[in-house]
């Protein structure tokens, strides 16, 4: 079963957010979503400096089988994107909570987010 990391928060659209209050929040997609998408071959991320809005699309993730919009789980300015995942999107499958992170946002407002327990219960993940 796909792993859900306890220390993160999650959106209904399967993005995880690492909010530790000390700086920009790291954002990625959950292992549940990565598994469901299949082997990811292309990722389109928001530009550094752009403002993303919680609940709105800010990019896309394409697998061999399908393509999904990427929804911003928080509102704020994008401070950094993961160039490694742009050149090697398979990192999202192999390490969705680590090397497969997508971008960082200087958060001004959080969207509706779930705890790891809530997300796992709703989506069949494993804590």
């Amino acid at each position, binding site marked *: 079963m796909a792993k859900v990391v306890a220390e993160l928060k999650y959106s209904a659209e399967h993005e995880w957010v690492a909010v530790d209050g000390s700086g920009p929040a790291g954002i990625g997609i959950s292992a549940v979503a990565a598994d469901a998408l299949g*082997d990811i071959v292309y990722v*389109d991320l928001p530009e550094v400096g752009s403002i993303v809005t919680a609940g709105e699309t800010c990019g896309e993730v*394409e697998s*061999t*089988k399908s393509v999904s919009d990427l929804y911003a789980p928080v509102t704020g300015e994008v401070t950094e994107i993961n160039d490694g995942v742009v050149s090697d999107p398979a990192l999202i499958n192999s390490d969705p909570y680590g090397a497969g992170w997508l971008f960082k946002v200087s958060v001004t407002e959080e969207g509706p987010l779930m705890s790891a327990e809530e997300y796992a219960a709703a989506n069949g993940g494993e804590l």
Partner: protein
Amino acid sequence: MTENYTALFEQHKKAGASFTDFGGWQMPLKYESELAEHHAVRKAAGLFDLSHMGEVWVTGPEAAAFLDYALVGKISAVAIGKAKYSLICNEDGGIIDDLITYRRPSPEEGVDRYLVVPNAGNAAVVAKELLERSAAFDVTVEDASANTSLIAVQGPNSEAILLTLVPAEQHALLTGLKYYAAVEVGIAVNGTVQDLLVARTGYTGEDGFEIYVPNLDAPALWEALLQAGEGSGLVPAGLAARDSLRLEAGMPLYGNELSRYVNAYAAGLGPVVSLAKEGDFVGKDALAAIKAAGVGSTIGQKLVGLKGAGRRAGRAHYPVLKDGTLVGEVTSGQPSPTLGYPIAMAYVEVEFAEVGTVLDIDLRGKPERFEVVPLPFYKRQK
């Protein structure tokens, strides 16, 4: 619709498959990585459960004449042991299904026997249609789909793997088997050698075999093949890999490229239709008129291959544009695992169907450049 399960469902579950509904069947979509399964089939071998496909036996003194009437190809010209790809069409020329027909040895003097293999979602419709069309012929039509499993071994190592289960004195039957031919071969399953129908056919663009087996013996055959292929890179492969493999090989998928609203000439399957064969066949008048009108060559739309210039792929139903004007629609598309660029099949207006024509696929509002290329996208080195 009730969900159907193949005799191999437990094997798939045990192997960690994720499942998808396909034609009313719960089928393995992938086991671990569909990309790894795809590459395994191109480089080594993959094992597929195709038990959702139909099996309809047609037997009788007029079996050949009947199939000439019911299908668009000249089935009567197929020699014993050989097979033919064909279509079953409506009176209006629309495609009910694409199927493979195997001619089997005569069970008795003056009686011919054929195995017709339709697609999963169409199996019941095809069986019913064949039965209805057979009324005026001395034949029996028997739908054996519910009792028959189908397991495919595909990839360059498939012959070597299958041979390990075949008694040495029968090896020549398999090594000498031609593409689109089938033979009964002894295969060791559960410690006993059973005669099973083995066809050298497939849907991957690689060498490979399809083995027809009674449901009861299917799990044992599956396990035996997995074990036989252990040292040869064989992996179980799901429908996701099957789809990417067939797309690279330029093979149409019913429901995507083919439907009741599409005709053989637009689909590039004109050569499959035998207007010259003796007698009438269902759809003949309509298909003759469609061909005479130049559909798929001078008017209407035509199925083409498209190669993407960027990294983003077109998907089924995406619009195809020429200078912003709608000229067609994608039927299948994805990034090609073997070739490393996006590929797609699409119906486009014939004037934009020439190889080399540059078109755009509307990728969710952003046009992306694609070029018309010849099909298939991928051809194996022989």
